[in-house]
């Protein structure tokens, strides 16, 4: 099965999107690795090299995952396996039998440039304090959103791409660039809602121009920020035929702990929240006859 994988797309390097990618890359020897062009630069390689040597790097799994990928490709001398991506990149476009196409809608050139400039902040100098580094939230603007079409079926995968009102980045840049008409993108019936169903991942024109009326929508929750919020769930339900969330955002894991510790924690903590890391899985298969097959595991919730 692993030999049948032809491509691995890392939409951006936040942990929930990159974790495990190095293992996947090693297992799928025929797969090319696609990632934002901003991560295929000298500044990004500098970060990868720093973390290769850092013996104290117990956290920062996202950056270390990226470092593992670079190190693996360097050691196997396989530079052609890595492909930088930005808006309008065509992963494949088959027209012989059933027309099949995968196209990147983002990141925009401006988003890539902004991302590269922020990478310079990761640079270290001798004497700098060794603290854990955080991939900035603004990396969401560097995320790769894709449009996939297979015959008459198409899907829009929104990654974590956000909207800031700036026409040069985010979703606005896609509409400003007129990609939809120029590339004849069909309205999709399947939608991976961007940025965990948040307001910042929403743009009215996604639903007007890129999707059919009431598509099947799916998203993943993000416990740390309580996404999607109940208000967003309601909004998405109104816009969709069905909404699947990979894990119940309302669920809280039960914590087993000494009573004395719980009392102490309640007296000290101003606020507290447990982070639910149960893994949900949604799989969508489309046959060449246009039939859908959607399977989920027990953690997925349907609204």
């Amino acid at each position, binding site marked *: 099965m692993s030999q049948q994988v032809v491509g691995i797309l890392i939409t951006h390097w936040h942990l929930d999107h990159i974790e495990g990618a190095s293992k996947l890359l090693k297992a799928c020897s025929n797969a090319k690795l696609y990632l934002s062009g901003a991560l295929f630069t000298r500044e990004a390689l500098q970060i990868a090299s720093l973390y290769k*040597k850092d013996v104290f790097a117990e956290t920062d799994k996202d950056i270390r995952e990226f470092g593992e990928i670079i190190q693996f490709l360097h050691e196997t001398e396989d530079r052609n396996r890595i492909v930088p991506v930005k808006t309008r990149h065509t992963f494949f476009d088959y027209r012989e039998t059933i027309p099949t196409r995968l196209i990147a809608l983002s990141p925009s050139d401006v988003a890539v440039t902004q991302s590269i400039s922020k990478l310079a902040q990761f640079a270290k100098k001798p004497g700098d304090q060794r603290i854990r580094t955080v991939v900035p939230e603004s990396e969401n603007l560097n995320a790769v959103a894709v449009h996939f079409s297979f015959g008459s079926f198409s899907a829009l995968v929104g990654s974590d791409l956000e909207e800031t009102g700036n026409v040069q980045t985010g979703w606005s840049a896609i509409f400003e660039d007129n990609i939809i008409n120029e590339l004849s993108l069909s309205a999709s019936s399947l939608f991976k809602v961007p940025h965990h169903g948040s307001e910042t991942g929403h743009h009215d024109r996604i639903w007007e121009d890129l999707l059919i009326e009431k598509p099947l929508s799916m998203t993943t929750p993000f416990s740390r920020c309580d996404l999607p919020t109940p208000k967003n769930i309601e909004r998405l339900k109104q816009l969709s035929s069905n909404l699947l969330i990979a894990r119940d955002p309302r669920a809280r894991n039960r914590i087993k702990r000494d009573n004395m510790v719980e009392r102490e924690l309640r007296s000290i903590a101003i606020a507290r929240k447990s*982070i639910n890391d149960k893994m949900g899985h949604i799989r969508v298969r489309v046959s060449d006859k246009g039939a859908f097959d959607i399977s989920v595991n027990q953690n997925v919730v349907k609204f």
Partner: protein
Amino acid sequence: MSTAIAISPMENTANIQEYAHEYGENKYRYGKTGTDFLSTKEPEIRPCSPKFLTPVLDLNRPREDIKQRWSGKVISATDQELTVRLEDLTNRDNPDELIVLSRDEIDDKDQSLVKPGALFYWYIGYRQGFKYSKERISIIRFRRLPSWTTKEIQESEKLAEEYANFFLTD
């Protein structure tokens, strides 16, 4: 209590072989033939009580009974509060938690270390001793990791150059 045989000031130490029989701190020194230079008698081998290996409990020092250990990372910090992510080291099945704390909970010596990315340990438990009443303890201790060294930076820059030459040049 030493039972070592005293050496006379006239003795030539170059002729003495030292046989160390360690029973605690005691050592025995013998002459080359097993006797000291000034004696014709066989040396006394005085039995010694074996080394006391069991750690001695200092009843004056309080004992700690740690009920909970976390490894933590600062997510964000203001002048009044900090938000941290805790990984449960006592029960690994428990999920990570996000906690907001007052900065007053942090030791004065560690205040300058409180910034996003900083790592710490947090212990909660009891302390009790012979002369101490039982008391609850909550200790947040920030890790003082060594700074980046010149050698590390230079090595990473050299590796980055290798990566750039490999990936970015035709």
